[in-house]
C-alpha cells in the first residue's frame, strides 16, 4: 500500500520535473527583436567581463574605466579575473542565452565558434563606416565573421616578442641575438657549456591550452599549416609542419631547451627566465619588460632586450598574434552603452594612455610612429617589421577539440614516446570527424 503511494509521489515529481525541464529552455529564448537603438540613458549600468591584463599591476585599465564613467555617466559593473574564470563565466551564459553581460571578453580562439552560434552582436551597426580602416588590418580580420561584419574590437594586442638576456649572451661570447633557430640552438649550447645559464630556453609545454599556441608558433615560423581555409586538416601532410614539430623535439634532445619545460606553464617559464636560468624567452606579453625591472621577482634587471623572432635556415619567419577583443553579447539589454564603452576603451587616446602606463601595444597603425611612444619603446620598430607576417590561431569551430587532441599527441612526442610524424598522424586520425568542417 505504502509503496504504491510512494511510487505515485515519485512519478508525479518526475513528471512535474519533466514539464519543468521542458519549459526551461523555452523561457530562455532570446528576445527575438533587438531593442531599437535606445539612447544610453544617464545612470545606465553595464556589466563588463574581461580578464585582468597580465601587465596591469598599476590598475591602468581600472583607471580608464573610471574616466569613462565620469565622462558618460554610465556606470560600469566590472568583473575581472583570470582568463580561465572569465571563459567559464562567459561561455555558459552565452550558450544558455543569458543577458547578464553587456561587454565580454572575445578571445581569438573563439571567433569561429561564436560566428557559427551567433552569440555576438555585429559592431557594424554601431560604427561609422570606415571606422576600422586605420587599425592593424590583421586584428580586424581576425574578429570578422564569414558574413563580413566585425564582431569584436581588440583590447589586448598580444603579439609574440623575442626576449633575450643580452648580458648573458655577451658573457657567452655573442654580440647579437640569434638570427636563425639553428643559431639559437648553437648559442644555447655554447652558453650552457660555459656555465652561463642552465638552458637556452625553458619552454612552457605542460599539457594545457598554451601548448597549442606553441604548436601554431613553430608551425608558422617554419611556414607550415595545421588546417586550411576550408577547415581541412593539413598538419599531417604538410612537410613544413613536420619540420616544425621535429624541431621542437630536437630543441629538447639537443639539450638547448630545458626538458622541465614539459611541466611548465607560462608563469613557470617566465620565473625561470627572470631568475636567470635561461637565455631566451619568446613570449607574448608586452609587459614582460616591466617585470624584468622589478628586483623582487627578477635577477636580470637591466639585462633583457627584445629582438626579432629568428628565422629558419631558409629565411622563413613569422610571428604569432593572440589578440583578445571586446564583444557585445546578442542578448545584452544595453547595447548602445556597451558600444560606447568599447569605443572609449579602444580609442586612440586610451591606447596611448595604456601604452604609456603599462606598455600595451596599440591597435591603431599610426600610433607605432607616435614620437613620444617610440622614444619610450624603441623596440616597437621591430614589432612593426613583424606585423606583415603576424598570424592568428587556426580559425575553426572545433578549435577546442583541436587543442585537446593535438596537445595530448604533441606532449607524447615531446616526451620522446613517439615521433613527430606519429603525433601528427594520430592527432589527424582522432580529429577525422571534423576534417573539412570550417
Amino acid at each position: 500500500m505504502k509503496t504504491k503511494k510512494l511510487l505515485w509521489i515519485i512519478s508525479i515529481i518526475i513528471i512535474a520535473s519533466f514539464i519543468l525541464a521542458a519549459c526551461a529552455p523555452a523561457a530562455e529564448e532570446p528576445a527575438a527583436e533587438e531593442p531599437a537603438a535606445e539612447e544610453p540613458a544617464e545612470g545606465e549600468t553595464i556589466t563588463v567581463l574581461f580578464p585582468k591584463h597580465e601587465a596591469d599591476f598599476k590598475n591602468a585599465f581600472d583607471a580608464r574605466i573610471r574616466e569613462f564613467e565620469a565622462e558618460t555617466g554610465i556606470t560600469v559593473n566590472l568583473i575581472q579575473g583570470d582568463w580561465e574564470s572569465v571563459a567559464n563565466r562567459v561561455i555558459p551564459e552565452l550558450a544558455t542565452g543569458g543577458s547578464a553581460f553587456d561587454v565580454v571578453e572575445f578571445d581569438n580562439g573563439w571567433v569561429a565558434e561564436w560566428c557559427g552560434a551567433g552569440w555576438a552582436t555585429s559592431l557594424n551597426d554601431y560604427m561609422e563606416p570606415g571606422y576600422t580602416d586605420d587599425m592593424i588590418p590583421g586584428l580586424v580580420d581576425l574578429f570578422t565573421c564569414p558574413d563580413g561584419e566585425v564582431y569584436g574590437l581588440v583590447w589586448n594586442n598580444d603579439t609574440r616578442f623575442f626576449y633575450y638576456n643580452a648580458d648573458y649572451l655577451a658573457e657567452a661570447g655573442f654580440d647579437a641575438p640569434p638570427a636563425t633557430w639553428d643559431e639559437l640552438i648553437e648559442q644555447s649550447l655554447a652558453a650552457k657549456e660555459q656555465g652561463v645559464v642552465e638552458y637556452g630556453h625553458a619552454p612552457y609545454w605542460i599539457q594545457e591550452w598554451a601548448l597549442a599556441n606553441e604548436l601554431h608558433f613553430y608551425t608558422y615560423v617554419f611556414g607550415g599549416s595545421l588546417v586550411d581555409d576550408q577547415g581541412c586538416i593539413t598538419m599531417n601532410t604538410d612537410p613544413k609542419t613536420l619540420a616544425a614539430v621535429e624541431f621542437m623535439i630536437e630543441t629538447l634532445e639537443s639539450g638547448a631547451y630545458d626538458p622541465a619545460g614539459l611541466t611548465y606553464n607560462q608563469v613557470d617559464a617566465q620565473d625561470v627566465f627572470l631568475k636567470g636560468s635561461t637565455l631566451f624567452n619568446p613570449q607574448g606579453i608586452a609587459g614582460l619588460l616591466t617585470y624584468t625591472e622589478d628586483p623582487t621577482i627578477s635577477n636580470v634587471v637591466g639585462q633583457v632586450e627584445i629582438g626579432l623572432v629568428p628565422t629558419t635556415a631558409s629565411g622563413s619567419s613569422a610571428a604569432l598574434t593572440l589578440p583578445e577583443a571586446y564583444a557585445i553579447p546578442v542578448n545584452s539589454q544595453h547595447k548602445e552603452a556597451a558600444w560606447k564603452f568599447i569605443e572609449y576603451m579602444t580609442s586612440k587616446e586610451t591606447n596611448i594612455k595604456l601604452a604609456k602606463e603599462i606598455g600595451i601595444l596599440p591597435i591603431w597603425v599610426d600610433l607605432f610612429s607616435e614620437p613620444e611612444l617610440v622614444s619610450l619603446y624603441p623596440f616597437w620598430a621591430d614589432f612593426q617589421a613583424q606585423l606583415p607576417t603576424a598570424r592568428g590561431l587556426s580559425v575553426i569551430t572545433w578549435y577546442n577539440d583541436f587543442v585537446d587532441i593535438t596537445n595530448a599527441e604533441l606532449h607524447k612526442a615531446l616526451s620522446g614516446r613517439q615521433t613527430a610524424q606519429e603525433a601528427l598522424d594520430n592527432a589527424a586520425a582522432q580529429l577525422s570527424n571534423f576534417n573539412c568542417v570550417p
Partner: protein
Amino acid sequence: MKTIKKFFIDNEHVLGWAMSGPALIAILAIVLVPMIQSIGQSFQNLDLARPALNAFIGLENYANLLKDSRYTSSLVSTFRFSVISVIFELILGVSIAVVLNKKFVGRGFVRGLMILPWAMPSIVNAAMWKWIYNANFGALNALLSQLGIIEQYQIWLSDPFWATVLVILANVWKETPFTVLMVLSALQTIPEEVKEAARVDGSSAWNTFIKITIPLIAPTLMIVSILQFLWGFQTFELITVVTGGGPFSTTELVAIRIYQNTFRSLRFGYGSAMAYLTALILVIPLVIYARSTYKRMVNY
C-alpha cells in the same frame, strides 16, 4: 498485542517520512531537475556551438564513449588514483586517529591542527604542491638534495610514474584529516565497558584493536572510504593545476574529460553521457563492497 505492534510499525512509517521528508525535498529540489535534464541530454547530440545538429540519438553517445580511448584510459587512471588514495587515507587516518585518542600533553591542540590540510581550499593546495614539485626551484628537490637523497634536481612531473605518485601524495595529504576526524569521533562512541571486558579477558592491545575496535568502527570506515573513493572521481583542480593531465594524459582523470567536453567543447550531450556511464560503472563495485562489509558487520 497485534494491534500494538501494528500501531508501532505505522507510527514508524509516519515518523520516518516526517523526519526524512525535509532532507529529501531539499536534496531533490536542487539535484533532481538538473539530473533529469542532464540524463535526457545524455541521449542527445547536444552541441551548444552547433545547435543545428542537435537531435535525439539514443544510446549513440554511450556507444561512442566505449570507443573513446581518452575516456577509457582516464577511467583507469581515476580508479588507480582513487583506490591508492583511499588505501593510504585509511591506513594513515586510522593510525593517526588511534594515536590522537591516547592521552598526551597538547592533545586538543594537535586534534584541532590536524584538520589544517583539509581546511585548505583545494585550489591553494594545488598551487602549493605545484610550487613544491617545481623542477627548477621546488622545495621537494631542495629538501631531497640537502638530505643527500638525490644529487641533481629532478623533473618529477615529466615522469608518468612520479607524476602519479606525487598527485596522489598531494591528495592523500589533503584528504586524510577527514578520515582522522571521523574515525576519532567513532572511537569515542565505543562504550568503555566493551574495552574493559576485552582487557579483563587478557587479550593483547593489538588483538583488542583488530577484534573489538575495528568491527565497532567499521560502519564509519566503510562510509568514509566510499566517500573518499567517490571524491577521487571528482578531483579536478589538483590535476589541472599540478600536471594539466600530463605527462601525455597519464594523470588525466575523468572529471577533466567531462570538463573538457562540456565547458570547453560545449558537447553537453556527450559530457553528460560520460558522467552517467562513469556513475553506472561506480555503482557496481560500491554496492558489492557496501553489501559485503555490511554483512560482515551484522555477522559480527
